[in-house]
């Protein structure tokens, strides 16, 4: 946490819940903290159900469409608190200041409109160019995301493009208003490994070129590690470890981060079993009391069970929610 520079985005103790019939609230994000500096790349890692996608939706102000509300905390963007912002305020920010690249590229392009129509729309809505220049800008954006034969692609529709090309078009749309922060939610999950590699490279390059900040969400620590400087690891709605990847990569200080690292197939020893995490991640509404991870944790002790999810504490150069972080060994 660098105190000298004002961060672009500061999420403090953010809590989000689904609104159930009868006014009951079902928590999905629980007191998450996240600080994204100017021109920094920040990863969010978690498995399905960890709340990472709902965190993204909070940060682009689309919670209400998914039946959820902010129940606590602050989202500071340039000093303005967005946690309680209404739709009118969000419209000035969503897509313009904060760009968004969703997971499913097929579902987020309009199948009946050409690539050009959609890019021109993105460019004109952003208000940066006149309608006349918008077409030239659309072409320039496609070239920026390194689409070969860009002129030809402009006239095509999404079903004519491969998954990787579609994802490039989406990225081009998101870049049109020159956002200061780009949020990419599992942008490569559906892609082949060679394509994934190129898209990650592209995201990293345009980020540096634009001096843009990035939040990259993934279930895969290695993907985040390709592009990001910092990471927050989420488990069952809570942030369990956060900090610089240079610190966390070699020496995780939360048992869940450690488990994510050592359960990867690439860290297997030949002929030996992988270190699997026992049990299953808790489902929404069934979070255990105490530390959320203790029922699956190989180093759980009696004092892990009461007292609710422990808050992040500074330890060994990063933030960790594990109260026994001092007992952990290097993987």
């Amino acid at each position: 946490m660098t105190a000298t520079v004002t961060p672009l985005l500061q999420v403090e103790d953010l809590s989000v819940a689904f609104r159930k019939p009868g006014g009951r609230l079902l928590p999905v994000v629980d007191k998450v903290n996240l600080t994204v500096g100017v021109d920094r790349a920040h990863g969010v890692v978690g498995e399905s159900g960890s709340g990472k996608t709902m965190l993204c939706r909070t940060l682009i102000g689309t919670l209400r469409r998914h039946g959820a509300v902010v129940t606590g905390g602050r989202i500071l963007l340039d000093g303005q608190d967005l946690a309680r912002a209404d739709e009118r305020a969000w419209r000035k920010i969503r897509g313009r200041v904060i760009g968004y690249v969703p997971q499913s590229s097929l579902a987020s392009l309009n199948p009946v409109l050409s690539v050009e129509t959609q890019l021109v729309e993105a460019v004109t809505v952003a208000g940066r160019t006149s309608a006349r220049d918008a077409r030239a800008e659309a072409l320039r954006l496609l070239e920026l995301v390194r689409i070969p034969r860009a002129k030809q692609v402009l006239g095509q529709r999404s079903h004519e493009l491969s998954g990787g090309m579609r994802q490039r078009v989406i990225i081009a749309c998101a870049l049109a208003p020159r956002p200061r922060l780009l949020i990419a939610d599992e942008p490569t999950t559906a892609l082949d490994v060679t394509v994934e590699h190129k898209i990650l490279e592209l995201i990293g390059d345009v980020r540096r070129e634009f001096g843009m900040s990035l939040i990259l969400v993934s279930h895969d620590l290695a993907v985040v590690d390709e592009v990001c400087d910092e990471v927050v690891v989420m488990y069952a709605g809570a942030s369990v470890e956060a900090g610089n990847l240079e610190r966390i990569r070699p020496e995780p200080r939360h048992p869940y981060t450690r488990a994510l690292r050592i359960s990867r197939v690439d860290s297997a020893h030949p002929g030996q079993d992988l270190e699997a995490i026992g049990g299953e991640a808790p489902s929404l509404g069934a979070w255990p009391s105490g530390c959320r991870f203790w029922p699956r944790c190989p180093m759980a002790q009696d004092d892990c069970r009461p007292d609710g999810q422990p808050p992040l504490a500074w330890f060994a150069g990063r933030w960790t929610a594990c109260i026994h972080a001092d007992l952990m060994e290097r993987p």
Partner: protein
Amino acid sequence: MPGPLIEAKDVTVRFGYGSEAIDAVRNASIYVNANEAVGVVGESGSGKTTLARVVVDLVQPTAGQILLDGVPVIHAGSRGGFPRADRWKVQMVFQDPYSSLNPRQRAWESVAEAIQVWQRVPARVARERALELLRSMGITEDQAGRFPRALSGGQRQRVSVARALAPRPQALIADEPTSAIDQSAQAHLLNLLRRIQKERGLALLFISHDLGVIRYLTSRVYVMKAGEIVEWGPTERVFQQPEHPYTRLLLDSVPGRRVVRRTAAVVP
């Protein structure tokens, strides 16, 4: 020395007709011995799933044949497919655990049904054996009583494995069984597959786009690209000294590799 348990010889699968026709698989030959884990790795569109489906007779080959214990069981163009008496020998686990289980059957029922059909035992015995088999997959009796929608992806996939093992097959074809589930569940499933392959002496054909998984699980590997097998050999050799440029490209694309290089570059 006995020959391969299952073998695909010069298999071609053509989809479409005339000028629209494309070969999803072209002249592919693979074999798997008993007690051997073999991988097929490739990206989407490489034909790896189609090839697997030919081996279990879900897709008719346009050319070539499938041999079981050296005996041809599927010929291109011939109807009928796998002889009924041999079908139990080769079973399959599918990619998507959400669509491959009957949503109206409890987990144990899916397995017990297969046991009842293949082992020809009364329903009561089938239920006991199903629960026992599921237990060995790490599925508790409580979980076995649930419908698929109430199980996690990893649990569902373990139920699918149990069902595939119900006929006590000699060969198991697994098509991307871990690609739709969380990483923590993936390790569990891979450990399980490795264990049952060894314990049962299964011929395992493992299809995946994930090089790490292939390296962990298999001793021999085929690399497919655009319908053709471009490289094959012992897994470690292929990973350490890839001969085909495409294999090298695949290996270089694995996330995390660059990090190693990046970090190394930072240190003077």
